[in-house]
């Protein structure tokens, strides 16, 4: 089963016992999944469970060289969708995407399509 | 000596820096 990795994440993030929930604090940090993908089409869903005042999330996909101690979408190895204004980020550049916030109760669907291996 | 280092603020204790939401952004929408 694909869950949040115990080790491949910023150590200050809290992960629930069933390793399906991650909680952050004090600045952006990244938690990755236990499994990585190489080809094909993959999809996962995330539900935003809680959003204290002023906090936001950036959720999406990243490669191994993405920094765990920064936000997703910070460098060229990661891509994210931000709860604030629904902005998408890559290489620290924000672009208009869904034009509105996503918030507690929303379920994000994240799809990636990689070329099949010949 | 603050005159030697403009906008420098003398503090007695370490200050925990509160990061901004846009801390890592070069450009936001």
């Amino acid at each position: 089963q694909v869950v949040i990795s115990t080790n491949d994440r910023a150590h200050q993030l809290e992960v629930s016992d069933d390793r399906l929930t991650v909680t952050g604090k004090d600045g952006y940090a990244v938690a990755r999944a236990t499994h990585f993908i190489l080809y094909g089409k993959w999809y996962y869903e995330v539900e935003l469970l809680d959003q204290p005042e002023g906090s936001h999330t950036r959720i999406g996909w990243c490669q191994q060289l993405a920094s765990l101690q920064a936000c997703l979408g910070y460098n060229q190895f990661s891509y994210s969708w931000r709860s604030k204004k629904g902005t998408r980020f890559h290489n620290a550049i924000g672009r208009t995407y869904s034009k509105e916030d996503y918030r507690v109760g929303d379920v994000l669907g994240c799809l990636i399509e990689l070329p099949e291996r010949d | 000596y603050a005159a030697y280092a403009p906008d420098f603020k003398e503090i007695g204790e370490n200050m925990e820096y509160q990061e901004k939401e846009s801390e890592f952004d070069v450009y936001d929408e």
Partner: protein
Amino acid sequence: NEPAGYATGQLYTRYKNMKVEWRAFVSLGRSGIAGFGLYAKRDIDMNQMVIEYVGEVIRSEICEIREKMYSQKNKGIYMFRIDSDYVIDATMSGNLARYINHSCDPNCYTQIVTIDNDKKIVIFAGRPIKAGEELTYDYQFELEDTEDKIPCLCGAPNCVKWMN
């Protein structure tokens, strides 16, 4: 994390005393090594806590961003790494410790001490220091073979000419 021979309790007391008295022991002045320097205003005993390196506690990634920003603004960078995750940035806010210069033959040394569950950077006297001497410590910069090597002007007989 403590100098040899001191119990933790003593360290705590010494730290608290230092925070009250440090201004009586040091003063800012023009340095023979670079720009400004911190000088002993009175004799300082060996292993005495002299001053804490105070500033903003920032994460390593924020440190990378700030270094680039400060360099672009030609600002002097005053930072001290406290552990693998955090750096003390005294560039915009801090105390006089930011002015202590590097020397290859320093009269002080630095130690990370934990006080009330917080890591602090404290500068100790490495030997008896006479009033009027400039305080120095080894910056312990990583040796780099980059083009932005920093020449060392400490003038110590064992100077290795480069700070990084």
